[in-house]
């Protein structure tokens, strides 16, 4: 269906070609998963299929990409619109109209389909994606998962043979991600659509893939093969694969279910060797929330939340999109005024405090770290941070040197990779030495390597006595880092306790290792390997 013939892409200002020597074929009706570290050219490869590369982004395309016999070099994206459907990370950026039904029809209108055909296909698509009861709703009023399903539906109505998706679940909570992936699987099964999907969070998708295309980056050639074979050597892999590799299972299981069937002997061997649960952080709380209620517009976002953050403790805040996680972080930093209850951070009431004093008590890295970075270069950013925090000149630069050892001082913050940008924002926040650090969805868009570095940095911060609160959808991150997990639903706390207890009891928030082994205290591959060392 999709043929790459010696494809290479080089952008004008880049020293190295982004893609080189891609020579492979994706057969019809398969779900092909595209994996690789950040910057390995995944988005570029997807762009060559939809025709956005080179027609829209510029750059130089060598070789040939053909989709169902059409050369994407000779066909502009609009001429491929009936053949290739494209969905990106952010559904809101994709929407052209303002209601669900109009959005589903938009692509067909552009192609000039007959009214009767449009009517029938809209109804079919509403049913296929479970959107029937939302048909008249305004797109802005939908949840993230619903929006992403509408975005997929809006390209499906033209019956494309190929669907190209760039990290469709990265902004979604685990439940909504399941929803979207279930839909994709149904498309492959029922309609025979060829799906090309790039994703960082492999634990969510790898079991659905018929084939995995690995872009190792650094000029190494791409690998296309059976998921288990590719995963056995891939530098990026989900925890289930890491566990399988550590336990020496062959063939490598890719789904929790397959792994569980193999895990009997491992479970027996590990029973009783679980690591001791870390004692809960003690000491006076540095931030405390009591019976907090916050309204955002007409909607109550938080209703009676209690939370205390203690030095050295890492707390994960979980819950579906719109459960009130960001609002709680915002209340702790004084962005939202409590409508009832109290918030105290280091003895201050955040919404009444001057920003200059507050940043010495609490720092927040927002969902998009770019919001925090105003400077023209890393150096300027650091100088501004020192000035804002009234710290000694060079404090921020020293932090950057520690957290981000080999970054070019003259780079514009927008030109850094996602992970580097996040770390730079963290360094800026840390310059004021706040005892409380809040991270909003820190792993969005990070690959496994960047995530690993983030885990190290946060652990160091906690060891140095900072209290850390992270709002996240990433169950693996929470399992790896958090001592304590708080689950919010509709603005209320529904679970609060040590991470092992909270996540094991919930199927949505349990990490893969816990689902496979179901042994108390063992949540991550790291813990398992250490326990294995102890047994031998």
């Amino acid at each position, binding site marked *: 269906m999709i043929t790459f013939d010696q494809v290479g892409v080089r952008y004008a200002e880049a020293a190295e070609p982004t893609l080189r020597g891609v020579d492979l074929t994706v057969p019809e009706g398969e779900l092909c998963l595209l994996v690789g570290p950040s910057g390995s050219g995944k988005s570029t490869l997807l762009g060559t299929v939809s025709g*956005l590369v080179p*027609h*829209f982004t510029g750059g130089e395309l060598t070789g040939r990409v053909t989709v169902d016999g059409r050369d994407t070099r000779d066909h*502009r*994206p*609009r*001429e491929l*619109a009936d053949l*290739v*459907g494209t969905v*990106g990370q*952010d559904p809101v*950026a*994709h*929407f*052209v*109209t*303002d209601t669900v*039904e*109009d959005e589903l*029809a*938009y*692509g*067909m*209108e*552009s*192609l*000039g*389909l*007959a*009214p*009767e055909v*449009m*009517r029938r296909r*809209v109804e079919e698509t509403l049913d296929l994606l479970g959107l029937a*009861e*939302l048909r008249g*709703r*305004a797109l802005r*009023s939908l949840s993230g998962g619903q929006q992403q399903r509408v975005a997929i539906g809006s*390209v499906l109505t*033209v019956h494309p043979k190929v669907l190209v998706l760039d990290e469709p679940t990265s902004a979604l909570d685990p439940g909504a991600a399941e929803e979207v992936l279930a839909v994709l699987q149904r498309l492959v099964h029922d309609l025979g659509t060829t799906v090309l999907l790039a994703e960082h969070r492999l634990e969510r998708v790898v079991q659905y893939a018929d084939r995995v295309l690995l872009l190792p980056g650094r000029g190494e050639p791409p690998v296309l093969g059976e998921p288990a074979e590719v995963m056995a050597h891939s530098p990026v892999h989900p925890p289930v694969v890491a566990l399988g590799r550590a336990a020496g299972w062959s063939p490598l299981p890719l789904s929790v279910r397959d792994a569980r069937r193999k895990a009997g002997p491992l479970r027996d061997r590990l029973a009783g060797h679980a690591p001791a649960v870390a004692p809960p952080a003690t000491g006076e709380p540095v931030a405390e929330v009591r019976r907090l209620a916050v309204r955002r517009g007409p909607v109550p976002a938080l209703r009676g939340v209690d939370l205390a953050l203690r030095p050295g403790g890492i707390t994960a805040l979980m819950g579906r999109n719109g459960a009130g996680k960001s609002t709680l972080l915002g209340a702790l*930093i*004084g*962005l939202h005024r409590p409508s009832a209850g109290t918030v105290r951070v280091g003895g201050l009431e955040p919404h009444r405090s*001057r*920003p200059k004093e*507050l*940043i010495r008590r609490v720092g*927040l890295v927002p969902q998009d770290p*770019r*919001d*925090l970075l*105003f400077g023209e270069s890393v150096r300027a950013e650091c100088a*501004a941070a020192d000035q*804002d*925090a009234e710290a000694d000149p060079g404090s921020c630069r020293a932090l950057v040197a520690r957290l981000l050892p080999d970054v070019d001082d003259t780079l514009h913050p*927008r030109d850094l990779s996602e992970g580097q940008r996040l770390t730079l924002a963290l360094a*800026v926040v840390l310059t*004021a030495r706040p005892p409380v650090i809040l991270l909003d969805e820190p792993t969005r868009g990070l690959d496994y390597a960047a995530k690993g570095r983030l885990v190290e940095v946060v652990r160091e911060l906690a060891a140095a006595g900072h209290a850390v609160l992270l709002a996240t959808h990433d169950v693996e991150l929470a399992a790896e880092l958090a001592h304590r997990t708080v689950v919010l639903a509709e603005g209320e706390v529904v679970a609060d306790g040590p991470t092992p207890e909270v996540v094991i009891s919930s199927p949505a928030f349990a990490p893969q290792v816990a689902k496979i082994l179901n042994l108390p205290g063992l949540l991550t591959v790291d813990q398992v390997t250490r326990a294995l060392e102890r047994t031998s």
Partner: protein
Amino acid sequence: MPRTAKSGTRSTFGPRQLHPGAWWLWALGLAAAASRTTNPLLLLLIVGVAGYVVAARRGDAPWSRSYGAFLKLGLLVLAVRMVFAVLLGSPVPGSQVLFTLPELPLPDWARGVRIGGAVTLEGLLFAFYDGLKLATLLICVGAANALASPSRLLRGLPGALYEAGVAVVVAMTFAPNLVADVQRLRSARRLRGRSDRGVVAVLSVGLPVLEGALERSVALAASMDTRGFGRTAPVPRRVSRATAVLTLLGLLGVCSACYGLLAPGGAPWAFPVLLVGLAVTGAGLVLGGRRAVRTRYRPDPWALPEWLVSGSGLVVAGLTIWFSGRYPEAFAPSVVPPAAPTLPLLPAAAVLLGLLPSVVAPEPPRSTP
């Protein structure tokens, strides 16, 4: 007559959205009526009529809440007008001085401009009437906006204008996004320990906001391109030339006719030229539509309720304009000397005809969240 789904239009049975064109005609009718009077009682009656219909027939989409925003905007306009009248004085000669502000001495070249000085009852009253008229016009637009989002209106544009319409829609959705961006970045300033209040805070986020807006528009353009926006059917060269010539000539005709109509005395040739110009432009647009391959998904029907709603707005406008000639003193209550405005009964009854849509327009479909 109700149509079936065969022709593609939506059914006229049950709850449905009224054709956006009908709502805009109705609102423009009310606005035309408001533009004819400074009588505050009539103006408030028009605001009341618009508000009642909005309350009765708006949907539950986000833009349906815009009536409140326009109401606030109207009050702001009124307040600004009053403040200016107090500070800069008023062109109306008045004798009843309420209070006197210290007057700023201005150099000779600024003769005719006054800052401060006596504030008269007549001047304030004049400013109040004038401001209220402007506020009412704004509120009428707000009512149309709440009842039918402008992007739905633009969907009905002829094929040749479709691309221009999309540009307008995109521009309109950017305004709320920009406001959200400014708010987000201002709170980010707070995270850096800088003040989030004041003009400096808003100005300093200008560049990042522009960058964000630019990125979003590029993303949207990419999305639209991949979804087939701008696909065109091949047309013979003669046709595209004819389109250009017709449209250009037609617009020229319309422009010169407008000039003729507005010129003092009015030129007798202007009206026929206007008609011819419109017809030629229309022909150009129809020809231009041949390039577009687009079809329309379930266009809104234009049935009896649409006729009644738009008709009621036009009747209000027509009657008010006619009455304004017959009762000029009731439509423009005397300011010098100040007199209590009275409500002229017949024009008031005419304005009340604008309530018709609250009964004849179909219920909008409501989604249960």
